[in-house]
């Protein structure tokens, strides 16, 4: 019984510590991840914007999956409306 209580306590302490570890940098890391994702978006949709992409055979498959994030992405990139003729999201 005692050992279980100690294990529980340790688990909780670990959870607190993980929170303390992550809390200060959560947004900086999320922002960095978003920057990487933005570049990936550009790669996936480059063909549609007239930039030749040697991997378009593969990235074409990803387009429907990333479409959900497309609107947010073009807004973030400073384009008020969808830059693509093919699909207009707004």
């Amino acid at each position, binding site marked *: 019984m005692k050992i279980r209580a100690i294990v529980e306590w340790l688990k909780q*302490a*670990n959870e607190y*510590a993980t*929170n303390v*570890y992550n*809390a200060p*940098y959560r947004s900086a890391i999320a922002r960095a991840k978003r920057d990487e994702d933005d570049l990936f978006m550009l790669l996936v949709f480059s063909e549609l914007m007239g930039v030749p992409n040697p991997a378009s055979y593969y990235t074409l498959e990803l387009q429907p999956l990333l479409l959900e994030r497309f609107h947010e992405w073009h807004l973030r990139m400073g384009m008020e409306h969808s830059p693509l003729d093919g699909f207009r999201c707004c």
Partner: protein
Amino acid sequence: MNAILLMLLGLGAMFLGYVFYSKFVAEKIFKLDPNFRTPAHEFEDGVDFVPTNKYVLWGHHFTSVAGAAPIIGPAIAVIWGWVPAFLWVVFGTIFFAGVHDAGAIWASNRNKARSIGALTGDVVGKRSQSLFMIVIFLVLLMVNAVFATAISGLLINFPSSVVPVWGAIFVALIIGQFIFRKWMNLGTVSILGVIALYALIYTGPSFPITLPETVFGVSDNAQWIIILFLYAAIASLLPVWMLLQPRDYINGLQLFIGLILVYGAVLISGPELVAPAFNTNTPEGTPSLVPLLFVTIACGAISGFHGLVASGTTSKQLDKETDARFVGYFGAIGEGSLSLATIIAATAGFATLADWQAVYHSFGQGGVSAFVEGGANILNNGIGLDVELSQTLLTVMAVLFAGTTMDTGLRLQRYIFQEWGNIYNIKWMEKAAPATLLAVASCLLLAFGAGGADGAGGLLIWPLFGTTNQLLAGLTLLVITTMLVKLGRPMYVTLVPLLFLLVMTIYALLIQLMGFYQKSDWFLFGLDLVVLVAAIWIALEAAGTLTRLRREIRQSTQSAE
């Protein structure tokens, strides 16, 4: 007087301050409301806005604000004797820092968790906001230059610390990988990391490293400063999870271990304070206590930097508004206790008064080295740790703090340069590497411009750094006061500290200005002048805003009648 008594008096007073004064301020002045829907709940996004347990948030807030500054400031200021430093740290924490920190969280919390910089624009005026940016830039510039000087001095004075100080970077890099890739849980990694760090500290004295006295005519001190900035430049360009985050975490652990060790050793050995209560025999060139004490100790008594942390990240994670009291006020007390430990180490850690006077032979000397030497003696007497090992331990603690601050500071400065590049359409300045280069260059210019060719005199700008930091605190207090006036609540709890700070900083700036003029130190004279202009500007803004508000309130009550 015995150090145990001083310790109990200080900690007891701060604790009473938390129990009574912070309760009064939280309930009667800020009127913290447990039912207020905090921004963390309103805008919860799992990234910036996350409701966080108050103890977790306190840990994050406290370790973000505590650094090398609450050690360096008091360690320099005990040159006037231990009583003035002790009183300013204790009463500063109770009536200034606690109210300022909790108030900054409250103000930001009531304004969609916006930063104090943005709030200054909203609450006080656009002009104050630009002033705010200038003051922040000056603080960052000075903090990097001053910390580089302090670290290089420590590395030269205590060569045994070189191996653990740089080894800690590798420990942090490895820890960062383990946690980021989730190879191990944090508890295990922390224990292994602390063991690795202490193993390095243990081996440090066996492998002392000193740089050659000169390389191409560059002194060892200057070499360290250049190496440190090289390191900070590279570190600030790495992703945060790789080095900064694990380093910060280890520092937090070190902070708690260090505080427990020092206070524990004081309790066991009960050393006598050898330094005079009031030093009537100050070395030549020591400026007068009033006003310089109040700018020499900034962090530890009140520091504007806390407002940036409080309003930048802490307020976005506040679960309940009432938590602001614990997180902000008790965070300030944590930092006050670190300063108190420094005061004890730097005044009770010497065998005789003559030893103490030998260390404090001129103003700006002693400093953090005195903390290390004194603290090491206390650790030696209290828990029997070898003196050299204790010195290495405390040096590593101080250097890691300062190094992490340099990393963060340089990063922030880079952002400012990048933003200027964006605003003024200078394309190359928007890129990370050139912006970092600019930041490093400006800091190096300050370090060598102020400290001479070998950079050794860089600590001369310490009081100037404190002044700028206090001005930042003044701006935050102005924001809180303005909010209180608008809400029709009593404003004296923040107005009195604000007035006190403004008077002391302007007075200190004028005195230093005269000193630099007499020494024909035109570099520091110019820097002082810039800060002085900012200080007077803030004073005018404060006066203007508050009289305007009072007039508005009087008019509205008259028209209501």
